[in-house]
């Protein structure tokens, strides 16, 4: 089965999860809701065949969860314990957002993000810039690799023990490359009609499916439960 969620659904999931991780689960019921919300993206990851990351996240979450409960229920003192509780607390608190974000980034093509934003009437300028940001991450990686090779050949990775030089040797060639590539990229993009007065269209036609509505429903309910428990009761 090939599941293709609407990117807007995915963005909504992130929206809800990011909000919920900010609120603490004070009762077992809320904690349960939260765990369910964490399980959903893990299941989605499995459906999309990202088994390794799904298992890794799940294991991390379960360990952190178990540790938190074990540690908190017993008499525990001392600095080390506090740090450990702290780490686990952070993991339990934030990992739902991390898993969801990971899922969304791994399974969504940049083109889909762009069309989703076009559908949501984000201005063209912001969409163009954002698409460039996404395209440039791999470019920067490629350029950086070559630069670090060049540094290795000359034995200057450590900048002669000088931190400022270390940063300078990495950053200067990188900036030169990026500026050059940017110039050529702009020229190529403009000759293909970027920046016109007509509004951009998108080749993908986005459509919300049954699963999309279902997920939006689940996450909305979860959000409402949290809001009600947190601020009303």
């Amino acid at each position, binding site marked *: 089965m090939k599941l293709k969620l609407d990117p807007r659904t995915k963005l909504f999931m992130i929206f809800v999860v990011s909000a919920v991780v900010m609120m603490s689960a004070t009762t077992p019921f809320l904690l349960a809701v939260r765990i369910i919300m964490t399980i959903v993206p893990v299941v989605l990851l499995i459906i999309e065949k990202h088994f390794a990351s799904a298992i890794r996240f799940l294991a991390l979450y379960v360990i952190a969860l178990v540790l938190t409960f074990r540690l908190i229920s017993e008499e525990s003192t001392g600095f080390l314990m506090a740090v450990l509780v702290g780490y686990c607390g952070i993991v339990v608190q934030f990992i739902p957002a991390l898993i969801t974000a990971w899922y969304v980034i791994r399974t969504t093509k940049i083109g889909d993000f762009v069309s989703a934003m076009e559908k949501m009437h984000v201005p063209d300028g912001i969409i163009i810039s954002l698409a460039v940001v996404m395209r440039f991450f791999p470019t920067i990686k490629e350029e950086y690799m070559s630069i670090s090779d060049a540094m290795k050949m*000359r034995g200057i990775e450590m900048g002669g023990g000088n931190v400022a030089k270390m940063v300078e040797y990495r950053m200067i060639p990188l900036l030169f490359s990026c500026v050059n590539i940017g110039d050529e990229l702009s*020229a190529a993009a403009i000759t293909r009609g970027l920046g016109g007065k007509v509004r951009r269209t998108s080749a993908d036609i986005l459509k919300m499916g049954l699963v999309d509505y279902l997920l939006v429903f689940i996450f909305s309910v979860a959000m409402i439960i949290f809001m009600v428990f947190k601020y009303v009761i």
Partner: protein
Amino acid sequence: MMNAVEIKNVVYKYKGGTEDSLKGVSLSVKKGETMLLCGASGSGKTSVIRLINGLIPHYYNGEVSGEVNVAGFNVAKTELFELAGVVGTVFQNPRSQFFSVDTYGEIVFGPENIGLAPDEITRRAEMVINQMDIETLMGRSLFELSGGEKQMIACASVAALLPDIILLDEPSSNLDWDAIKKLREIIKIWKEQGKTIIISEHRLWYLKDLVERVIYMDSGKIAHEWSGDKFMELTEDDTNDLKLRPTIVKEELVRIFENNTGDNYGIHLDTLETITLKGFYFSYHHKTFAIWKKPYSADDGKDLNLCIPMLTLPKGKVIGVIGKNGTGKSTFLRCICGLEKDCTGSIICDDMEYKKKNRIGFSYMVMQDVNHQLFADSVEAEIMISMKEKNEKRCHEILDSLGLLACKNTHPMALSGGQKQRVAIASAIAAGARLLLFDEPTSGLDYGHMKRVGELLRELVKAGSTVLVSTHDPEFIAECCDYLIRIDNGFLIS
């Protein structure tokens, strides 16, 4: 009939430039004509291309006079995005001209920009994909494609806008033999569709029988004009005089590139001193067994990206490394100079054995994009970084021998491409490297510059270094290589 392109007496100077790049160029191109622009670097070819696609004056500011009309539009008064459906441009560098991350997204990029309806975009994309036979490239990330494949996508992306006029600005610069032949096929398709095609190019052989008219530019002016057939009849002496690359590739070189069985291109290693490479095995996906990695041997052949049990290189010679893109040429060079830490193997020279880390000091690679290798804020400082004991006198000697002394205080990035290359070589010499590796040093160079690089390599050899150069430039091989080795899927063929 109306001309597709009409340039009337254009004079142009780039912003901050000291000299006019175009000194009164007039040119008209008929509809459906295929035209070649040739001439040395800096002769104004690219400026003419930019005049036609409107990047001059809309993107590159400068002083321009004269008039340019393209398909009835006055370029100076037309916004660039209005020209998008009329003129399409394929640029030189496949790496920097794509906007998207995936192949399909790149093809539909143009149509999306001009606001076509989604089903029309899909229709066009399918049509272009069919025409160019690039179905297999769909759904892939542009970052994992080879230069040739990227250039195919760039062509497709331009074609999806259905322009009547297509410009190609040195499109073959970064391509290997096979990719250039594919490029030829694409140009042929466009020609059959009746498009007006203008190609600015240094490599001429692949355009045989395609172009109808050839324009030769020299320092901002149109100096000669031939019909396509007449031009291809020019002898090597004629083209040499014009500082152009030959129009045909020599028979024996064609064989080298076409043929997969190597013939002996002069191998007689009798009394020469040699450098021996021993046991170079390497794979990009080396499996880790628990905590240590099993060393490779020749038996693992099939799984390896590089497998060279023993190779003897003649010392003090220029050795060409050929092979298709993606068959291990770069891996070979990277392993020799020690950039791949996992690569086993040692270099033996003068009874000294260089292993692992020492290989870095022994050999030095001049990269295809030299910009990555320049770190300092002046040429002199650049050389000094490489020297273990700072010695200003020695530094100046090196610079002088490479003709760089005059610009010792200039910022390396302000230099021309050839000068940058020489700065990189100078720092290699300063570091005491004895085996110099070059990765595609002549991509995108005109005949004169290519020849100069050849001479430079010869001088380096005379001064006692050994040079290994990976290339797919047949004319360059003819120019300076003493020996050739071919790499195919990580194996040494000849």
